[in-house]
């Protein structure tokens, strides 16, 4: 959920309207969750869940085969996966042509910069890179709104690192 929140804050900081909300469950820590974020230039009135996402951020690839996470994702939809492994390893080879995949070792980056396996900030940094909707600065600002002090710095660092990682990934054009 935090990721969606921060994404909406980042968008807000860039003068957009944004709406973030969870798939309302009584979430327990670690349990699988889905959260949504809409961004628009105009006021967002729509309250239905995001059924046809333009982009998908997958925090935990181990869930890939439990729920059909790709449902509704439009053609050439962007997908950012938190992983160090390749699409083959993830068993997503056949989808490679269908969507535009990027991966980022968000958890590792988090461990490196924050000291804890909290991939959200890194994923947002990566998302800023693939979507081009929001700047890494907005992401940093959003992070600093949610966190403060060392935690904020760590998360910002992780986000920046992820951003660079994905930019390079795109530049190298290797769509795993």
């Amino acid at each position, binding site marked *: 959920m935090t990721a*969606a*929140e921060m994404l*909406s*804050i980042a*968008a*807000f*900081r860039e003068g957009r*309207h*944004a*709406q*973030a*909300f*969870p*798939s*309302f*469950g*009584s979430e327990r820590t670690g349990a*699988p969750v*889905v959260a*949504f974020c809409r961004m628009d230039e105009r006021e*967002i*009135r*729509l*309250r*239905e*869940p*995001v*059924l046809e996402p333009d982009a998908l951020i997958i925090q935990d690839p181990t869930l890939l085969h439990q*729920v059909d996470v790709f449902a509704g994702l439009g053609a050439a939809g962007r997908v950012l996966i938190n992983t160090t492994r390749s699409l083959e390893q993830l068993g997503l080879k056949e989808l490679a042509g269908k969507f535009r995949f990027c991966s980022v070792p968000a958890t590792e980056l988090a461990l490196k910069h924050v000291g804890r396996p909290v991939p959200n900030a890194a994923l947002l940094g990566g998302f800023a890179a693939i979507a081009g909707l929001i700047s890494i600065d907005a992401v940093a600002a959003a992070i600093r709104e949610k966190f403060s002090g060392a935690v904020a710095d760590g998360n910002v660092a992780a986000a920046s690192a992820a951003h660079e990682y994905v930019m390079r990934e795109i530049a190298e054009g290797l769509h795993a």
Partner: protein
Amino acid sequence: MLKQIEGSHAVAEAVALCRPEVICAYPISPQTHIVEGLGEMVKSGALAKCEFINVESEFAAMSVAIGASAAGARAYTATASQGLLFMAEAVFNASGLGLPIVMTVANRAIGAPINIWNDHTDALSQRDCGWIQLFAENNQEALDLHIQAFRLGEELSLPVMVCMDGFILTHAYERVDMPTQEQVDAYLPIFEPRQVLDPSEPVSIGAMVGPEAFMEVRYLAHAKQMKALELIPGWADEFRAAFGRDSGGLLHRYRTEDADTVVVALGSVLGTVKDTVDELRRDGQKIGVLGVTCFRPWPLAAVREALAGAKRVVVIEKSLAVGLGGIVSSNVYNSYAGGADAVHAVIAGLGGRAITRASLARMLRDAVAGRLEPLTFLDLDQPLVERALAREREQRRSGPLAEAILRDLGVVAARPG
């Protein structure tokens, strides 16, 4: 000041700006974040001159609020669902005693089966409790309505229930314009209780009233709510003047001017409905939307006037009067000159079932085409209920209905909507 924050925290901040003096808190989803936010503000001192009391039940929460309000303090609490039902006795009592308590209801379904997700069954179950009931369309209106609620309640000496959709609004991050303390202070005067417990002027509040006067007491309660109908629009205008926003009032009209079909609804679903209506308008359908902000008192005249030109009315409601059908629609019937058969009740979104543009559009097209039943259940899994009913028919003792349905459904899906 513009902010991108969670609905609950927006409401918490707005309530704090109203300088409440006693806040009673008892946890129940999805209201919890609101009182959590307020609790932190009181502890940190950000909200001074305020007593935050962790009570042992919703019944106690409302009771503490009653005591505080009767003693002249501005009192606030929040609840939802089962919690509202558990405090029901005190809810009626607060309005009976004419105590201007403000309460947020983060609308949620009522069990059994237990369900934490959103619908309006809780608030509508209390529609006759004598409180003013306001429904927020989005988080901006939710926080604005709280500021108006204190003004409204205290001027009329009536309690006010601000209803906002659980999770859909309470847990949604979106942009809100948070007013300044100065703005709120200017709009909301110091609480001057109409009656107060004070040793310097002792009175007995809450006498036993017998047949000789009870009817009159009830009549006066009704008259007071009717008075609210006259005053609310004015206060909304004042609010617009002070805050530059259209929040509150009795109704919100959207593209109803030339509409043959008017969709009536309460709360957050209005946003989705409006998007859907825009879509249908592009296809040339003459459809408008009537959002009911003030459900109690029921703005009969205003609704009648708003529906005057409509050929048909579709009421989308997130509650079900089991054995009758629509609750809001029953209120609409007698406010619509066109006759009951032109009013369609559409029960939707019970227990958090997502209300999608697609379903709404389909349903509205049916309505326009005259294919819509007087009572419809949006996105009902027809085959499933058929199977359940069939099972009912063959064996009388088939166990709890919910269980049976889940068996058919296979798993409890944590799927979106």
